[in-house]
């Protein structure tokens, strides 16, 4: 009996030792996640990432996404599907413990997570993931990733990814003292061909004690990249100018119709833009509630609605207020100013004073890299959109009967009336058209600005500036005016700063208007005198 018990005890002991032997760095590190201390989390992360355990990638991913949970010192992974896994075994875990809390991370841990993800996904089968991994390693410059990196470069078939992997290797090699000068020079050459701002950063922070020829090559490479970037920089500023110009064009083009062709000083124009933006908000709320799948199309649905809502409010304003004030600019100005306050406060009462969140569809997020230019998709979309609106409006005014009537009434109201055009009706429709266009501008502006009751106020001054500068009564003038102001503003800004830049521009416009009171493209002929 005794011997049997001894054998049993020895067996249990052996079993215990066996499980102990299996507990590697991965199992040791896991409980540290439960300590709710950022340093412990970072240490545990490093150990898990370096353990080579099959579950380590899932743990790091879960930590990144806030799906790594802790309860009573145990660690769990919540899968995206909602299932709970025991992080030690990877087995499904039954009912969730009561006090389950996500492991918190801060920026330091987040950086470590990115670096760890880089090391773990270098050999991923997905090219996109490998690209992200190469970028992460480039940033972390973690020498531990070097062997995997070599392996990944040898296997890589995509040219872009291979280049990214190679510059990641160069980043690591450049910063290591025990690497031969030839290898480091090769690394510098690789970074030089990469030629972006990050490469400059790396090249200009060479660790002290580098051999002189390496330091020399690095500073030369940095200088070469810098002078190349200068050129790109100028191009980038012009792009910023065009994109600002397109925003100004969108805001001003409706005004070009109401003020430019009808001569109505409409201070409530900005509020039409705001109403368009709020229409977008309402459309998105409805889509979120009833058809979340259509969110990507929400802006396209909002466009016609914004045109209709803002346009009909425009017609209403024209019929009830403005038509009694034609030919009395001062009264129109005051009345529309009052209207703008009424509209603002109405929106404030209905939707509240705080900003409303208008989401950006996925296809409008991110940036397109062209050479060293970075074109953000939302700005590209707005430039394209502004151009489309402009062309459409030109065509409407040129080729439709409404356009013909509007032009006729603008040129000679009484003659047009004698020819049987109902000038009253045309006034209302033209005002509605201008307001509707302001409404669709609001849809675009909701993507880059606040959706708050004050949205319109910030654009009204700029809009008038564009229309007056471009020349009253001319859509082309509005286009050229908006683009000139946008590009001039953005070229001035790096040198003069945003505040001074604006002042300089205003003074320039005042001087210009002194010289040419009718703006860039003045209407000629008898219509002007009338």
């Amino acid at each position, binding site marked *: 009996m005794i011997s049997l018990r001894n054998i049993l005890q020895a067996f249990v002991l052996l079993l215990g030792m066996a499980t102990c032997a299996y507990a590697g760095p991965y199992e040791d590190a896991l409980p540290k996640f439960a300590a709710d201390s*950022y340093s412990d989390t970072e240490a545990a992360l490093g150990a898990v990432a370096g353990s080579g355990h099959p579950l380590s990638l899932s743990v790091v991913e879960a930590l990144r996404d*806030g799906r790594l949970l802790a309860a009573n010192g145990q660690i769990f992974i919540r899968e995206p599907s909602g299932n709970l896994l025991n992080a030690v075994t990877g087995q499904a875990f039954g009912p969730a413990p009561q006090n389950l809390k996500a492991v*918190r991370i*801060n*920026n*330091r841990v*987040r*950086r470590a997570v*990115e670096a760890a993800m880089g090391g773990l996904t270098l050999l991923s089968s997905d090219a996109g993931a490998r690209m992200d991994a190469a970028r992460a390693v480039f*940033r972390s410059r973690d020498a531990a990733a070097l062997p995997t990196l070599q392996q990944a470069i040898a296997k890589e078939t995509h040219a872009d990814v291979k280049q990214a992997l190679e510059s990641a290797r160069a980043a690591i090699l450049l910063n290591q003292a025990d690497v031969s000068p030839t290898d480091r020079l090769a690394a510098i050459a690789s970074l030089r061909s990469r030629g972006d*701002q*990050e490469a*400059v*950063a*790396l090249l*200009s*922070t060479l660790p002290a004690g580098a051999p002189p020829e390496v330091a020399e090559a690095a500073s030369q490479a940095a200088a070469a990249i810098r002078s190349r970037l200068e050129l790109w920089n100028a191009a*980038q*500023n012009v792009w*910023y100018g065009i*994109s*600002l110009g397109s*925003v100004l064009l969108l805001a001003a083009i409706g005004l070009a119709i109401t003020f430019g062709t009808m001569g109505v000083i409409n201070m409530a124009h900005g509020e039409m833009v705001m109403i368009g933006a709020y229409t977008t908000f309402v459309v998105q709320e409805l889509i979120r509630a009833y058809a979340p799948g259509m969110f990507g199309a929400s802006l396209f649905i909002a466009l016609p609605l914004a045109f209709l809502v803002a346009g009909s409010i425009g017609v209403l304003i024209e019929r009830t207020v403005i038509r009694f004030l034609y030919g009395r600019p001062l009264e129109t100005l005051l009345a529309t100013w009052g209207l703008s*306050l009424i509209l*603002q406060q109405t929106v*404030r009462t209905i939707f*509240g*004073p*705080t*900003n*409303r*969140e208008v*989401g*950006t569809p996925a296809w409008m*997020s*991110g*940036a397109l890299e062209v050479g060293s230019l*970075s074109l*953000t*998709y*939302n*700005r590209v979309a707005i430039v394209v959109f502004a151009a489309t609106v402009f062309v459409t409006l030109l065509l409407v005014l040129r080729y439709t009967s409404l356009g013909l009537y509007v032009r006729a009434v603008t040129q000679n109201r009484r003659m047009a009336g004698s020819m049987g055009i109902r000038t009253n009706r045309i006034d209302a429709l033209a005002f509605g058209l201008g307001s509707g266009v302001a409404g669709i501008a609001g849809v675009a502006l909701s*993507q*880059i*600005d*606040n*959706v*708050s*009751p*004050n949205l319109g*106020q*910030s654009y009204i001054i700029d809009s008038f500036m564009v229309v007056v500068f471009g020349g009253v009564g001319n859509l082309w003038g509005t286009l050229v005016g908006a683009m000139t102001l946008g590009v001039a*503003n*953005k070229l001035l*800004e*790096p040198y003069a*700063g*945003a*505040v001074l830049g*604006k002042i300089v521009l205003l003074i320039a416009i005042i001087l210009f208007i002194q010289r040419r009171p009718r703006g860039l493209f003045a209407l000629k002929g008898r219509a002007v005198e009338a």
Partner: protein
Amino acid sequence: MAILDAARRNMKALAAAALVSSAMAGAATAQETIKVGVLHSLSGTMAISETTLKDAMLMLIEEQNKKGGLLGKKLEAVVVDPASNWPLFAEKARELIAQEKVAAVFGAWTSVSRKSVLPVFKELNSILFYPVQYEGEESERNVFYTGAAPNQQAIPAVDYLAKEEKVERWVLAGTDYVYPRTTNKILESYLKSKGVKSEDIMINYTPFGHSDWQTIVADIKKFGSAGKKTAVVSTINGDANVPFYKELANQGVKATDIPVVAFSVGEEELAGIDTKPLVGHLAAWNYFQSVESPENKAFIEKWKAFTKNDKRVTNDPMEAHYIGFNMWVKAVEKARSTDPDKVIDAIVGVQVPNLTGGTSEMLANHHITKPVLIGEIKDDGQFDVVWNTDGVVPGDAWSKFLDGSKDLIADWKTLKCGNYNTVTKKCGA
């Protein structure tokens, strides 16, 4: 008739029409109430931030009335709308004090509105509780500053970045007016005293409501790629923040590369943005809605019930009003009177619980003690507190890092002076 009178009075303050029944009852028996002025913009550019504070004051007054009022009388809120118009602030303040005879005023947001009402409060000898973080360099007998002074927000935030994020290069970006300019002056001289070189500091100002951030964000990116860890300290105020953060997200500036720490962005401001791309950017405040304390939990529940909206958030200036209002109530009880002179004498030293689980005290320089918290933006628009001071930090009226102000102290208890020079031993700088 009484109802008609009450209605007419309420017509004056448009928003007060929405006032709860308690205030209506209070208005009917005007002689027995203590009036409290609420001076926050309900229209114009600042309505976005200030309307919430008006609601918070109405809630605090309603709570106090439920507890039986003050000195046996009911409190009555008198709400006026200065419409984000700085001179109108002074006019409305005069109306509150001279016509409505309020016992104290809670209000103002921007520094310029505070400066505009100061002479009125001095002339008519009344009390103002100012709930917003500000640039300091001021201490007035009639004003109590319940928001953070720079040493309770800006300096600890910079210390956190230097220590935890190892930041060596600094972008100080702000809106072009007195608060960002003074705060950045203090920060610049503080950073230089810590050995940061001038080429590692970039200062940028933008107009109010600036909406095209492309160039500036690109500049920040460029400044940040000089090989040293870079952070942005943002004193950008109001509406300009949303397009700023949207541009950061679009140009792919992540918190792990270039963190942005903001002094004017709270839960309310984030409510208008999709915060997923902003996770990890920071804010420094003395209160976050996510702080776990029994007082805070109760406060949030009351707020949601009062506004009948489950999604309403709480923020730092609301907590400042909570602290300020409770301090005023305690001081009035202590003085057994609402007479401004007696309350001003009684309130120094008054301690009330704050919402983060500690106790705040009114100091002799009319600033209060508060804890400092650093929070990282989470994807749900709330903040995760990543660092906080061990105890409370006393607010400095005069910064120790500016040449003109380091010798000055404010003491309204013994010295009876807001700018006593410790070198020349004279009051008045």
